[in-house]
């Protein structure tokens, strides 16, 4: 069944195992599952929309806005994933970084797993065996998020419904507060990391504010839809220039 003979697991030819056809098939399988889920969800949303007073035009607008908003982050994730191809091969990179997980967790988990075998990602200690164990460790780590979501979501849903029955005002307060709290916490946590992180954060925030103000002043709603993407582009550009200029000692 294997198209080539596998060398000993101490070989450092990672891509020889990492690009095996069966791994490609499984990566495309995950793609397919996500497409099926998206299709079923969109269909369910369209069916129930009239009940909550939403037009199909509004649904399409939300779909398009989500797509536009994710252009910047998607491109960034794709480029970072490209950089990891040499370490994980294409199928594992697609599955782990792209589909079920994030760059920060997966690379962290793989590095930690390799560390338990006194190895480093890439380089002479990074054997096929190390790759296989690191790949399994990061996949199991990702699986734990899914497992806990499967277990916790119904529990949280029951609690949520109970609270909303007791006091309907929670709907107007709690989700907005959770959203603001989450973005303040996630954003501020980036600031102490370096001066460049501050530049990235502040320049993107300013650009975002300027585009929102422009959209309002010129009465052009499309600017608002694209504002996130433009702001990310400007933020990265400004950061790239200031890193190249060596604004802070020791990046």
């Amino acid at each position, binding site marked *: 069944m294997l198209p080539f003979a596998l060398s000993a697991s101490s070989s450092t030819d990672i891509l020889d195992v990492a690009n095996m056809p069966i791994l490609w098939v499984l990566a495309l399988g995950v793609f397919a599952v996500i497409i099926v889920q998206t299709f079923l969800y969109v269909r369910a949303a369209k069916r129930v929309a009239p009940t909550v007073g939403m037009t199909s035009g509004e649904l399409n607008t939300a779909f398009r806005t989500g797509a536009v908003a994710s252009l910047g982050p998607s491109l960034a994730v794709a480029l970072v994933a490209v950089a990891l191809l040499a370490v994980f091969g294409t199928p594992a990179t697609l599955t782990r970084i792209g589909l079920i997980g994030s760059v920060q967790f997966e690379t962290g988990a793989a590095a930690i797993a390799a560390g338990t075998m006194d190895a480093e990602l890439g380089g002479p200690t990074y054997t096929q065996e190390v790759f296989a164990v690191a790949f399994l460790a990061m996949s*199991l780590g990702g699986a734990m998020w899914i497992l806990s979501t499967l277990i916790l979501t119904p529990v949280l849903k029951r609690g949520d419904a109970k609270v909303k029955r007791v006091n309907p005002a929670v709907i107007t307060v709690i989700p907005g507060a959770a959203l603001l709290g989450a973005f303040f916490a996630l954003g501020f946590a980036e600031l102490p990391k370096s001066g460049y992180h501050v530049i990235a954060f502040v320049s993107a925030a300013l650009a975002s504010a300027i585009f929102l103000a422009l959209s309002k002043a010129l009465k052009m709603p499309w600017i608002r839809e694209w504002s996130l993407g433009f702001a990310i582009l400007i933020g990265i550009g400004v950061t790239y220039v200031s890193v190249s200029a060596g604004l802070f000692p020791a990046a």
Partner: protein
Amino acid sequence: MSINDSTTASASSLQTFDDTTARWGRLTMIAGLIISLCGPVYLVFFSGLGVDRALIPVAFLAVAGTFGVLWFVEPVTYFPILGQASMYQAFMIGNISNKLLPAALMGQTTVGAKPGTRRGELAAIMAIGGAVVVHLLSLLIFVGIFGTWLLNIIPSDLIEVLQTFILPTVLGAVLVQAIVSQKQPRTTVIALVIASAVVFVLIPALPQLTFFATVIVVFGTVAAAWFFRSRTAENTQHEDVT
């Protein structure tokens, strides 16, 4: 049709929607879970690499020691924002804080829907759906098809800048969008104060709480916003600062 009938009908179609998204959300998530594990399991156990199996629990425990807290904290943190249906979307696809949450927020803002309401739930599902399509296409094209070629032509310092600074950039841009779209000045100030206190005072003093920072801020903000809520505006969507 009497008012009672139409209320019953809408309640039952909402129930159908909840049941459909919960059932298919869970089933597709379980399928994703199994398929994503098949690859590494095959490599380790059946590919003839002769991997030392004793290495696996050690590696897994090391990963769990670092990230294990997030497995439980993140679903609890994001549930109030995402709601049941989108939980199964978001946690299967990952990239929640840098991509799906911003997409959901933008989608809700554009159609004027609040998170936590039914309109907000549908807007989030559609927006995340749009984000998923862009996400899959970008991966398929830039990584799957042109990846190896791109690896050779993109300057490595650009990739390094992207890898290191994409998160602060996205979060800076999104925070402004969140503040503007929520139109809740009181809650914004509360979130600002609590996040500053936790990130700049509490975490440097107790670094072992790092992974709890977001959940502490989220629940702190929720509790404080609830406590200080404008009671005269209890039944309206907006909050005044009167």
